[in-house]
């Protein structure tokens, strides 16, 4: 009886939380004249909105830009963080503790504070309207470094010693032993960085002025100010941004949830 109430509460609440996205999905399949109707299921479902945003408004290109930026950023950020984490977890060297706390303290600084100087640097480098501008400034992922270092500390030293006796170089040890053993955390850091860059709207907005370099959210911002009344198209473009990351989440949620909670609680 009491449990029944909890189920009802949870189901209603879950519905409320997901409702905006369900409505977005249904609207993206409605012809524009139908976009404002209160009927959830489209009377005349159509793929026309998706065809139009891709054919007439280059969202296909924006989608590929988003994909390139998020994938390359996730790859390099995870690589750099793993390399650094290995020595923080398993090596002793002068300056180690100072550097680590310096890295961690940067997490206290609000992101907006970095925006203007980072823009200035990117501008001076002549990187405006390049993938580099969108990716490189965020490749030092301190949060990922922290997660990876914590994890690598728990790997047994004996494995590293054994490999060293067998004549393996440091880089081979990193590549053949540390990386495979850290796979779950590496997956976490990769996914979180991918998600961060997929959603890094403000930064992508300020470093792109050429339509060719827009990512999906930037394209959506521009589209919105030009076509306020094309609701179905706006929702189709939103779907293009939300559905891929939601699908990735559904298949890899363990990594997302564990990574985000572990980092938050320990950090």
């Amino acid at each position, binding site marked *: 009886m009491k449990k029944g109430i909890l189920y009802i509460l949870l189901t209603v609440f879950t519905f409320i939380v997901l409702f905006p996205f369900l409505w977005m999905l249904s609207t993206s399949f409605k012809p524009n004249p139908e976009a404002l109707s209160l009927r959830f299921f489209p009377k005349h479902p159509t793929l026309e909105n998706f065809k139009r945003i891709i054919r007439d408004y280059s969202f296909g290109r924006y989608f590929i830009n988003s994909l390139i930026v998020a994938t390359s950023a996730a790859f390099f950020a995870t690589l750099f963080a793993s390399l650094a984490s290995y020595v923080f977890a398993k090596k002793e*060297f002068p300056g180690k503790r100072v550097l680590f706390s310096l890295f961690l303290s940067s997490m206290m600084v609000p992101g*907006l504070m970095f925006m203007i100087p980072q823009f200035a640097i990117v501008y001076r480098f002549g990187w405006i309207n390049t993938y580099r501008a969108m990716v490189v400034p965020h490749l030092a992922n301190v949060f990922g470094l922290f997660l990876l270092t914590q994890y690598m500390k728990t790997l047994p030293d004996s494995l590293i010693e054994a490999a060293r006796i067998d004549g393996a170089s440091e880089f081979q040890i990193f590549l053949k032993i540390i990386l495979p053993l850290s796979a779950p955390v590496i997956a976490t850091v990769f996914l979180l960085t991918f998600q961060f860059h997929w959603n890094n709207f403000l930064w992508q907005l300020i470093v792109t002025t050429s339509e060719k370099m827009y990512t999906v959210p930037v394209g959506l911002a521009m589209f919105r100010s030009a076509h306020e009344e094309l609701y179905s198209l706006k929702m189709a473009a939103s779907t293009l941004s939300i559905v891929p990351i939601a699908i990735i989440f559904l298949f890899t949620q363990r990594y997302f949830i564990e990574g985000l*909670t572990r980092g938050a609680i320990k950090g």
Partner: protein
Amino acid sequence: MKDTLTSYLFLLPFLLIFLVFLAFPVFYAFYLSMHEVRDLADVFGGMEWVGLKNYLKLMHDARFWWSFLITLYYAALSIPLGILVSFTLAVILNQPLKFRNAYRSAIFLPYILDVFVVGIVWTFLYSYPYGVITRLLMKIGIKIPGLLSTPGTALPSVVVAMVLKNCGFGMVLFLASLQNIPRSLYEACEVDGGGVWEKVRFVTIPLLKPLFLFMVIIGIIGAFSAFAEFYAMTGGGPAVIIGNKTFLSTEVTGLYLYRNFEQLKLGYAASISYTLLFINLAFSYLASLSMRRRFV
């Protein structure tokens, strides 16, 4: 020696990016905040040293202080509501229920989505007079104006959207901590005649104190970094007239900073960002003090 060299080689890529794009900007922002753009064709070349002028101007900038108050208002609404919702969800999901993981994932999902895009979707739902939320509210007899275009309701409407988007994160944090509370403490409470409420009040809440504090701190930092939700949903509007001055009823500090940046008032924007840093640190410190006093 060779070992040190190898270690630094491993560190190099990360360290290099960190120094150029995270460490240097902290100092460079300060440098910029002492300058003013003179040549709009060459914004970073055509700068002139103005000393503390930007900071002095900021002290007397009514629009800045207004945005500061709006940000506090945003924090004061969204933090308690967010904590209440996510804590309640966590306590419910901590019961042995079927489909717990499915509920948890579904509620967590919106947290990982882009704030800006989610804001666009909510703007569509809230739009007046045809948005689905507006029309549903009207159908059940609630006469409302445009939720996002009326000064009184615009900010609370953004709060509702963002709390629903982000509550999954708080919920998961609370759930993880709830599972660490030893059963014996609840049993002891039961022996003393405590019911569900007493267990929450005398066992759960005191033990989760550090987490509540953490949520308040990240909430404040979040409020002072808030940008995309307002950019997407209100653009800072609608305007309100107080005395003989016009203010924007949802222009939070992050948005005001962006507006200055947009107009290439880079020095001034940098001085706002530095002020934000100190405000953040001060609030985090105050939050930690007040939590210590209330509970111990």
